Structure formats: structure tokens, C-alpha cells
């Protein structure tokens, strides 16, 4: 959703060079170069994954090799074109990708693009929730730790940050499940919604696949509540890791800005301490966080595979895990290539946002 809004500001950049001459290298040029850099990145990853996967042999032998006679296998291989030289296959694969065709799964003959449309929304929703939790946890606690530097709350928060990093998302998920759904019984164990709600959401016209949006469209308070309740534990498990990273980053950066002269100046003008940390010191400290956020979104996507498996949250990661255990490597390759594109585009968007906010970021 944010994606759509954020790409549009390329328009103002057209006018930017006129007033931006003094800054050196125009914003428009930066955005263009950064955009073009997406292609080599994706190309390298896709190539790497393709050749790595072909080193194994071919996907058909890997998935059904044991169950077919050699002649049947040969037939299947020939039909799929896996007996041709690898360079030919590679060229064909690149051609497919250029047309937006990521392949068709072996086990259930689904197009990877269909899988993206069906399950992409769920993953997007989860990553979005995770990011929100991370920001809610990381930014205020990081400010607090910086303000109370080297005193006991700071020490506790630093240990907390190390713990969030040290806890794998599936273990955090397991503990949350034990405490909140098995023992306390206040949160659902897994899934994206109750069966009743899933059915209700399936019936609405043009579902977006993002349950929260669909639920709001039904206007039914109970459905919205159910969807949100299901999201609490997965979002927390996923968001805490990134939250710890944000905490450390905010702490380090705010510590830096708190020592700046303009903060002393503001303090001498009688600006209260709360505003001093929350506004004056925080704002410049946020810029590196936006840059790191791009990286963290990639991490969240990786983490979503684990989170979705833990909580039975049916998104791209859950599907990836299913295809992995079915040894359907065409599907795995397709989903991984797709994620490579998503990561590259996300990083591009984040970099552009960072460039808009911070005039120092230029090539």
C-alpha cells in the first residue's frame, strides 16, 4: 500500500535540479541511477540462484526421481526441456523473468505469480505489523536508553536488546503460544483468522488478501477484532528482533545528537526535556534508521518464513516452507527470485525516501 504512495513523488524530482544546483548531483539523477541499479542486483541474485539450483541436478529428478523408471524420467525431463544445455535453459529462464513469468510449480501446477497474488498480501500484512511493533518498541526505548545513558535503565534496555536478537523468532513464537494461548487462553494459537471469519472474508467482493483491509471493508467490529487478535503474537515475535536493532540504533544516534550544541541551545531556551529528546535530538537521528529500515525489511521477509511456519500464517513464507518439504524446487526457485525482486525494489524505495529527507545522501 505504501509502495504506491511512495513511488509517486518522483514527479517533484523533475523540478528538483533547478533549485538543487548548489547541492551538487541532482535528486532526479540520483533516483534514476538508484533505479537502474535494481536491475544488476536482481540479475545477479537470479543468476546465482539459477546456477546454484542447477548444480543439484534438475528439479524433476529431485522431486519425483525415485518414483519413476529411468525411461519415464527421461521423458519428463525431455518434455520440460531439462535435457538441453544449461546456457539455453538459462537464457530461456531470463526471457521468462523479463516477461514477469516466474515459472509454474511442479507439485500443484500453480503459477508463481498466482501464488504471489494469493499469498503476497498475507506476508505484506505480517511484515507491516512487524515493522510497526519494531518501531513502537525500538524508538521510544532507544530514546530512553540514550537519555539515561549508563544508568541502570540503559543497562537493562541494552540487555533486553541483546535478548531480542538472541531469541530466534520461532522460539519467541513458541513461548508466546505457550503463555498466551495455552495457559492464559487469551490469544488464538495460530492462523490469520478464525474459520468463521475466514469464510466471511472469502465472501466479500474483490478481496485484497490483506485481512485487515478486508475486515474494515465489512465494517463488522467482531471481524476486525478477530483479525487483529490473530496478528498480535506473530507480529510481536517477528517485530521484537527488529525492535532490538532499532533500539540500539536510536540509542547510539540520539546519544550523538544529544551532545550537539543546538540541543544545549534549546535547553538554555527552556525547552522541556521531553521535547528535547523526542523532537530536537530524535529527528536527525532518524535518518540512519530509515536507511537501515530497508535492510530490516529484507530481514523481516526472511524472518517471515519462520514466523509464518510457526503460526500457520498462510503467506509466501508458509508456502515456501510447504514447497521446500515437498522438494518442489521450481517453486522454491520461483519464490526466491520473486523475493529478490521485492527486496531490491523495497531497498530502492527506502533509499529514495532517505534521499528526500536527507539532502546529504547523493551520489
Amino acid at each position, binding site marked *: 500500500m505504501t509502495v504506491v504512495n511512495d513511488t509517486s513523488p518522483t514527479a517533484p524530482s523533475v523540478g528538483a535540479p533547478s533549485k538543487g544546483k548548489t547541492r551538487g548531483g541532482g535528486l532526479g539523477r540520483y533516483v534514476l541511477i538508484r533505479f537502474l541499479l535494481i536491475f*544488476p*542486483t536482481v540479475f*545477479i*541474485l537470479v543468476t*546465482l*540462484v539459477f546456477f*546454484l*539450483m542447477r548444480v*543439484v541436478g534438475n528439479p524433476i529428478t529431485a522431486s519425483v526421481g525415485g518414483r519413476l523408471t529411468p525411461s519415464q524420467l527421461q521423458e519428463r525431463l525431455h518434455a520440460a526441456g531439462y535435457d538441453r544445455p544449461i546456457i539455453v535453459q538459462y537464457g530461456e529462464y531470463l526471457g521468462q523473468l523479463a516477461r514477469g513469468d516466474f515459472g509454474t510449480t511442479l507439485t500443484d501446477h500453480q503459477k508463481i505469480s498466482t501464488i504471489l497474488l494469493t499469498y503476497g498480501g498475507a506476508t505484506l500484512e505480517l511484515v507491516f505489523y512487524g515493522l510497526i511493533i519494531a518501531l513502537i518498541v525500538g524508538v521510544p526505548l532507544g530514546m530512553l536508553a540514550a537519555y539515561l545513558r549508563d544508568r541502570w535503565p540503559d*543497562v537493562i534496555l541494552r540487555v533486553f*536488546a*541483546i535478548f531480542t*536478537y*538472541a*531469541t*530466534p523468532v*520461532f*522460539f519467541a513464537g*513458541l*513461548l508466546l*503460544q*505457550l503463555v498466551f494461548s*495455552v*495457559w492464559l487462553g487469551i490469544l488464538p494459537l495460530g492462523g490469520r483468522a478464525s474459520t468463521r471469519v475466514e469464510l466471511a472474508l472469502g465472501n466479500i467482493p474483490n478481496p485484497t488478501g490483506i485481512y485487515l483491509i478486508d475486515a474494515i471493508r465489512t465494517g463488522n467490529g467482531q471481524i476486525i477484532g478477530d483479525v487483529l487478535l490473530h496478528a498480535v503474537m506473530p507480529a510481536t515475535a517477528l517485530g521484537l528482533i527488529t525492535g*532490538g*536493532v532499532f533500539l*540500539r*540504533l536510536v540509542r*547510539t*544516534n540520539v*546519544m*550523538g545528537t*544529544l*551532545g550537539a550544541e543546538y540541543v544545549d541551545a534549546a535547553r538554555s531556551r527552556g525547552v522541556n526535556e521531553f521535547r528535547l529528546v523526542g523532537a530536537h535530538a530524535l529527528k536527525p537521528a532518524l535518518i*540512519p534508521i530509515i*536507511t*537501515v529500515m*530497508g*535492510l530490516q525489511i*529484507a530481514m523481516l*521477509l*526472511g*524472518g517471515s*518464513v*519462520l514466523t509464518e*511456519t510457526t503460526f500457520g500464517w498462510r503467506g509466501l513464507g508458509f508456502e515456501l516452507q510447504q514447497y*521446500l518439504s515437498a522438494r518442489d524446487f521450481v517453486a*522454491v526457485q520461483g519464490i*526466491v527470485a520473486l*523475493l529478490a525482486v521485492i*527486496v*531490491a525494489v523495497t*531497498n*530502492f524505495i527506502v*533509499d529514495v525516501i532517505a534521499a528526500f529527507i*536527507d539532502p*546529504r*545522501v*547523493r*551520489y
Partner: protein
Amino acid sequence: MSATTPEGRAVPLWKRLPVVKQLRRSVGLQRGMLVVGIVICAVFLIAAIFAPLIAPYGFGELSNKFGSFPRQASPDSTFIWGTTVGGYDVFSRVVWGARTAVSVVILAVVISVVIGVVLGLVSGYLGGWLDRVLVVIADAVYAFPSLLLAIVVSIVISGGNSSYIGGILSAAISITVVFVPQYFRVVRAEAVRLKSEAFVESSKVIGTSTSRIMFKHVLRNSTRSLPLILTLNASEAILTLASLGFLGFGIGPTAAAEWGYDLNNALSDAASGIWWTGLFPGLAIVMLVLGVTLVGESLNDLADPRLRTRRRARRKKSVVASTETTAGGSTGTGTTGPGTGTTEEATA
């Protein structure tokens, strides 16, 4: 004691070893963190080395002379941490799991340091088109979710089914692929900086061969920050191994014990309130990562004079925009991501 040692007197070798040196230099809270970290690591190392002596049963043992082990038995005197749904003793598997984790991590870190350092040196010192290509590849790999990459490599190497040695090797190599770019970036940056230093130029003047300059003079000066990344990476390696195991790319229950694999099996137990099958392997992961991270963090703080707490004059520290290395290689290079590779100079 040591504080009074004059500069001129030789310090014994053991006092100059990486961790020992920092331990002697540390003070107060930082020393506490370092000591806790070292103790935790030591406990796991002991568990790994002496697993056959510590664990009451084997990792794949399902019965003894008194008959088969009970399934999902709660912790009692025979099975102090209970048994799993398959009838394995949880305590024994956690202890044996330490051996798997430690072997994979050591292997992964060693391989990635060797490859990363060599590539970084060659790329940074020689430059040219090879350098450009390697940098682009490293950046692309670095920006990609490391777990997905590890999955792909793991498929390639093991095809999913693995023996003990095969499983450990495949896990280690999968993790290596993720880490090589990190060492590569650090060493390359150092090599680029060092190659214009006077001592390199003077070596050239007296006719030292390029390879000798690279692997003797430049290498020695560019590995300063490696121990820090190394410890931070070791903790990430443990997490990656556990994640691979959790997704079913670990080592089968009969080949070795692996915490992530056990946690995956424990998921269904948790739904019925069986906590012991998941809690202990999970805690083992958390504690080991915690221990290694504490050591890494302390080394990082102690290496940076602005973060190091000193014996005297502890009050009145000047506040500086710190360059603290954040946990995990994910943000290891500071505040700018690899996607913005070239913006690093701009924002610095």
C-alpha cells in the same frame, strides 16, 4: 598489578591473546559483561567436547536395558528435562546439540574468514574490473535475506537428506555463503585504505612482490576489526543453523542432535501444553547466542576508545556520535545499508 607495567617490558604471550588482553583492560560493567559471556561460552564448549560424558543417553537413543523410553514424559528423576514425542531424552539432545552447534559455527566462521579475507585483499589491493564485479555481487548477496540464501545453498549441497558430517558441512557452507560478503567488505575497505599508505609504497620501492605485500603487509594491518565481526557472526551462525533446522534442513534425529529441528517438532507439543520439549532447546540457543554476543559486544566496546570505560576519570565522558557495531551482521557496517553502498561516503 598490570597497570604499573612499564611500556618497555615485554608482556607474556598469553596476556596478549585477543580475549585475555581485553579482559585485562576492561573494568566495571564492561568486565562483567565480558566475563559472563566467556563463562557462558565456556559452559557450551565443555558440553560440546564432553557430550558423551555429560549426556546420560545418546542423542538417538530410544531405549535402554529397562525398556523403551516413555513418550512425552514430563521431567522427573530419570529424564530430568522430560522426553520428546519420539521418545528422545530432551536433556541428552540439548547437550549433544551443543556439539553440533559448536562444530558448525567454528567451521562456518573459519571457512568464511579465509574466503572473505582472500577475496577482500585481492579485490581491494588489485582493484580493476574484478574488484567492481566482486563488489556488485557482494552487495547483491548482502542485501538478500540471508536465510533464503542459506536455504538455497543447503538444497544444493545436501539435497535435504544428510548424514552427520554431510549435515554439518552443508549447514556450515550455507552459512559461509551469507558471511563471506561481510568479511569481504571489511577487508576490502581496509585494503583500499592501506594501499596508499607509505609503508606499502616503500615496500614496492624495494621490490617486494605484490603477493608478499598483500598477504604480509596489508593483511596484517587489515585484520584489526576481524575478531569483532567474527564473534558477532558466530552468534548469527548459531541462529541461521537453528533456522535451517527449524525449516527441515537440519540434521536428522538419528544423525545428530540439532536444536532448531527439535524446536520444530516441539511446535505441535506446545499446543497441548507440553513445554519441556521446546523450552530447553530454545533456551540453549538463546544462551549460546547471548554468550557469544556478550563477548563480541565487549570486544567491540573495548576496541573503541570512545566506548571503553577507563579505570580513572570515569566521569565527564565526551559524548560522541558513536560508531558502535550493532548486533548481527545485518547492520554491521554501521548506519548505511548495502543498497546505498555509495552513499556511505556522503553521509559519513
